[in-house]
């Protein structure tokens, strides 16, 4: 358990960084871990397997760090641009259509009355006429002010329409980018899976060659041993029982990194040196998350002569990925490390320790 705790701390440190630095560091480590692997593959024979396994681990670490970064970048972008989906606020013009007609007709009536009194010499009437003219001037000025605000309100209306149009266009563009990012994320995920398969193939290719070296091959690994028939003897350095059987996540005190399983059940079968199995798990998601907590996938592949076994998986909704089975410090512990193509709202990586049922 102490080893597991240390392992989890190391993993936590590795995954805690989410900037480019984290995956760049992982990339450098991967590339510097064994730069002569391919050049020496022809001569190394079975001895290449642990080297390939180590490099595969570094490649997987890079893939996971990069997937994490891409997911974080996508979430940040989503947060930054999600508001585009909400149509823009369109303030009302607040123009009373009756006001101008009311003022205009009032102005006309006042002017008519003032004009009708134009010839009256009575001082009182003259005083009234002056008031009427002043009132008319005020009504005319008011009409102009109403008209000016109406024009300003029209400008607001056309600005609203323009903003709504631009925002709709921006939403379309953003959706296109979301699709591009998903595609790029998918390509990255597919690359990670392909790298895992490549290193497995490299190791078995090197081993296969040593068993039956071509005549022209100048150097062969003298210590290489021809593999036994797979149906009879296990190909892994540890007994296959360390991987096969039914495994479960403990109800209390479980060890995990990343998403915490609520439960996880793993079944692994072996047949003629080949593995197949199923993982069914439910994860505890952060509060408020609308993601799918349930994950189910099948996996299969050949057992290899390495401690850690890597198999290709396919989830129930068609995502691809890899699962690594790492025998624990005790015979009844098995560490599981998986990653799949990132899919929105889906758990795409996990790392936890299971107990044999």
């Amino acid at each position, binding site marked *: 358990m102490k080893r597991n705790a240390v392992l989890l701390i190391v993993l936590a440190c590795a995954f805690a960084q989410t900037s480019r630095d984290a995956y760049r560091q992982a990339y450098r480590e991967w590339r510097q871990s064994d730069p002569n692997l391919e050049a020496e593959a022809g001569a190394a024979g079975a001895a290449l397997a642990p080297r390939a396994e180590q490099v595969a681990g570094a490649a997987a670490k890079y893939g996971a760090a990069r997937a994490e970064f891409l997911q974080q970048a996508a979430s940040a972008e989503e947060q930054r641009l999600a508001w585009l989906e909400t149509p823009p606020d369109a303030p*009302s013009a607040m123009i009373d259509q009756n006001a101008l007609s009311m003022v205009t007709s009032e102005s006309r009536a006042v002017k008519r009355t003032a004009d009708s009194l134009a010839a009256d010499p009575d001082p009182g009437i003259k005083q009234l006429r002056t008031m*009427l003219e002043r*009132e008319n001037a005020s009504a005319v000025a008011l009409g102009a002010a109403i008209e000016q605000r109406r024009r300003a309100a029209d400008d607001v209306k056309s*600005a609203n329409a323009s903003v709504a149009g631009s925002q709709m266009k921006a939403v379309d563009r953003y959706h296109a980018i979301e699709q591009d990012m998903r595609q790029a994320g998918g390509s990255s995920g597919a690359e990670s899976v392909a790298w895992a398969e490549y290193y497995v193939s490299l190791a078995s290719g090197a081993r296969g*060659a040593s068993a039956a070296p071509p005549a022209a091959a100048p150097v062969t690994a003298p210590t290489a041993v021809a593999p036994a028939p797979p149906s009879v003897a296990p190909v892994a350095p540890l007994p296959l029982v360390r991987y096969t059987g039914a495994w479960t996540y403990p109800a209390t005190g479980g060890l995990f990194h990343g998403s915490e399983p609520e439960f996880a059940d793993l079944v692994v079968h072996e047949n003629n040196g080949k593995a197949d199995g199923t993982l069914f798990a439910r994860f505890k998601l952060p509060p408020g998350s609308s993601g799918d907590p349930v994950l189910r996938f099948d996996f299969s592949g050949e057992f290899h002569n390495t401690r850690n076994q890597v198999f290709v998986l396919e989830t129930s909704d068609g995502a691809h990925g890899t699962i690594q089975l790492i025998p624990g410090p005790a015979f009844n512990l098995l560490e599981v490390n998986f990653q799949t193509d990132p899919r929105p709202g889906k758990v795409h990586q996990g790392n936890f320790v299971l107990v044999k049922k």
Partner: protein
Amino acid sequence: MSRLVWIALAWTWLVLPAVGQPAPAPAGDSLETIANKRTAEWDQLARGVEPKIARMLPCDPRVRSALEEVSRASDARLDAVSRYLQSAEARARADVERARKALAGEQAASQDLETERQEAAEERAAIDGQLADLDGSVAHKQSLEDARKKLAEIRAKLEERIASLQQEAGSRAELTSTLEQLVAGYEARDKAIAAELTALTAETTRWKEFYATRLARAQTECSITNQDQPRRKKP
């Protein structure tokens, strides 16, 4: 004296900061509802006031009160509209800021994409190196051919990634351009609302003048009627 100074300071600290800011309490919708309600109230009074006072004697006190009532309703309506527009302007300003931030973020994301492309090119060069090394090993051990094929497939996948990054760069350039238009649009809308508020202030002044002159005419009508009566009694 010192008490007056303290009152003045308190007024400066407590009251002044609130001046010029949109009323915090009701949300935009309720301000719009209030403005519409006040406008409807004024509209009803304004339509009825002239026919109503036409049937009254010039010095009937109800003339003045009817004109004052419609003037007060006008003030309340314009005040409510002003509050609503101030709130709309505050929201418009916030929209401008949000759009500017989105644009800045998008410009940064476009730069990040260039980094992605450089890194992908670096990865491609590394794979080419691996392929060259592996070609040499395959010449010695044919069983490595499958691994070589897989590595070539990875290189093809990387090419796909580079192509989709290229496509993303195009989409991002379009989004950046659209966000620039959006920022300009939001700025124009903010200015338009501010211009409408200015126009409303001018209109409010004109309405006050209009009702003041209407009230002054009513007073004149009353005063000349009262002047006439004693003059006719004398002969």
